[in-house]
């Protein structure tokens, strides 16, 4: 005989009475684990989609509109390139990439084309869709990293061949040509092309994207600044921001840092994500409150009834020499076991539910998250122990005379 055995045997003796409170905690944990699991993969999926879309935050001159930007990618107004430095040197978290741009209208062989100056690495990191060109397969930066623009602000580090081609080899006389422009003026890889009185070598013709990028010619930002005579200015910074950081107010922080610029998000996409996240967070909170109230109340109620029912047994144990601490341990251990089994069971069923129904409910693949087992067990055990505390204390303080019917 030992304490665990005593508790375990009692649980099995009265398992039917225990079933309701066990179900309350078990199903509550199941629901929370399932929601958290699906939410995690939902957020990841949307973040991936946002990465594929490219920039989700735009920094524009005050006078520009988002419509202007997306229709022609050009505004009359500009702002200093120094803004990029300010962003890079700031301690803002969630800036995964920065892509400063300066666009000017030019004519090539009698055709109107948009000449866009870029800082190559950042530009191609953002444009995942251009990877089809075969030479620009840069990996996306992890969410939450402060942006880097090594070409301009950081000494070169050891980089892959692919990365070097993108960053280092796009020299002042090299150009990338959009698909429509290439077809319009009839150029191919390796051809020479003249713009603003300077000759550029076509490094690559970009594949069709179906966006305004198809009617652009990309050269180095500093070449555009020099040839257009505008100096160190830009007229847009495209930012890939981490979704969670955007939800947490990244746009407002950038606005504060750059008060003379207009900071906008690709609102439709980000708002959907924010709404989804908020809905999931609210749902999770609601279930948390329900499980604490219903699960906790159910366990406390069961424990009080259990103590009342076992008064004679407790009195007998006390008569045989059991101290109040042993009685306390008996009921707390019971609560602990209840919480442990409920937490582990809830984690397993919640995970099975999330993996099975996640694809149908959220349209995403969901994988088990082992870290949630700690969370589930911690929550379940915490609730069970707190709910058992008062009944256990009452049991420990029980008058042993209850053993005798006459008294």
């Amino acid at each position, binding site marked *: 005989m030992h304490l665990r055995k005593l508790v375990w045997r009692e649980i099995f003796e009265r398992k039917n009475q225990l079933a309701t409170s066990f179900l309350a905690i078990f199903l509550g944990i199941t629901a929370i684990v399932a929601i958290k699991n699906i939410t995690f993969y939902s957020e990841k999926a949307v973040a991936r989609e946002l990465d594929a879309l490219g920039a989700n935050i735009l920094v524009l001159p005050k006078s520009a509109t988002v419509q202007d930007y997306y229709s022609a990618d050009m505004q009359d107004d500009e702002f200093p390139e120094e803004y990029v430095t300010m962003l890079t040197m700031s301690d803002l978290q969630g800036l995964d990439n920065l892509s400063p741009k300066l666009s000017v209208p030019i004519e090539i062989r009698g055709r109107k084309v948009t000449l866009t100056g870029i800082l190559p690495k950042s530009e191609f990191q953002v444009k995942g869709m251009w990877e089809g060109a075969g030479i620009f397969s840069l990996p996306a930066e992890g969410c939450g990293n402060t942006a880097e623009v090594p070409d301009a602000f950081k000494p070169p580090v050891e980089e892959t061949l692919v990365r070097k081609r993108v960053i280092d080899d796009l020299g002042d006389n090299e150009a990338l040509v959009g698909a429509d422009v290439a077809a319009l003026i009839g150029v191919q890889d390796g051809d020479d092309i003249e713009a603003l009185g300077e000759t550029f070598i076509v490094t690559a013709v970009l594949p069709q994207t179906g966006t305004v990028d198809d009617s652009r010619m990309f050269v180095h930002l500093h070449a555009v600044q020099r040839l257009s005579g505008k100096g160190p200015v830009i007229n847009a910074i495209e930012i890939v921001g981490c979704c969670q950081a955007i939800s947490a107010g990244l746009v407002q922080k950038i606005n504060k840092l750059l008060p003379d610029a207009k900071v906008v998000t690709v609102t439709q996409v980000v708002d959907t994500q924010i709404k989804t996240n908020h809905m999931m967070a609210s749902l999770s909170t609601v279930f948390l409150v329900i499980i604490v109230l219903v699960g906790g109340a159910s366990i406390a109620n069961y424990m009080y009834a259990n103590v009342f029912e076992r008064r004679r047994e407790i009195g007998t144990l006390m008569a045989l020499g059991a101290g109040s601490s042993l009685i306390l341990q008996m009921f707390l251990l019971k609560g602990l076991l209840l919480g442990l089994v409920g937490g582990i069971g809830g984690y397993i069923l919640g995970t099975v539910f999330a993996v099975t129904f996640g694809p149908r409910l959220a349209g995403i693949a969901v994988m088990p998250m082992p870290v949630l087992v700690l969370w589930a067990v911690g929550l379940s055990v915490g609730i069970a122990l707190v709910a058992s505390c008062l009944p256990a204390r009452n049991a420990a303080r029980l008058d042993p005379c209850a053993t*005798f019917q006459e008294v």
Partner: protein
Amino acid sequence: MLRMEGVSKSYNHRTSAVTALRDANVRMNRGDYVSIVGPSGSGKSTLLLMLGGMLSPTHGRVFVDGASLYDMTPNERAAFRKKNIGFVFQTFNLVPYLTAVENVQIPLFLAGKDEAVQRVCATELLERVGLGDRLDHKPSELSVGQQQRVALARVLANDPAVILADEPTGNLDPETGRQVIDFFDELNEEGRTIVMVTHDPSAAERARTTLRLVEGTVLNGKAESICAGYA
């Protein structure tokens, strides 16, 4: 060994005070065999509980081997009971979800004995009371007589010097009751002090000393004279 000095116990029942025991002065020596008799509600069980350290008096003191029982903390009293006192209950008070041998193991578990030792000792005790073939039976699977014998085996597990029994034959048929009293005789011959509350005149006659309680007052006397009233 057991001494009560001027012990009284009063309860508040709704608006009126009820005196269960008044100014009791009792002395019992080591190895005594005492029966406590009296009508229902006369304070027999109250006196027994006080001797066992289970119920504190309103007034007076209870001494065991010179130590004042109610000057101890509740946990000290529990530890004292564990070492020195065994209780036998009218309704046996076996733990319903444990087997016979596990019930007998409880005092040994409380005393911190190793589980293997518990099992061996409990088995020996159950064999002593004639239940060697019922070790793994639950109380509900035993007759009332067998249940009381399990309770007797349990009371012996911590080898108590004092055994306090509250109506030990109250729920038993005469033959089984006689067997239980025979067993008490045997335990008393081993040198244990037996204090037994009973309504059964034949059981009370077996004690060497009888205390009679009437409306909370203790009267000393011999069993024969007191039990004459039951005949």
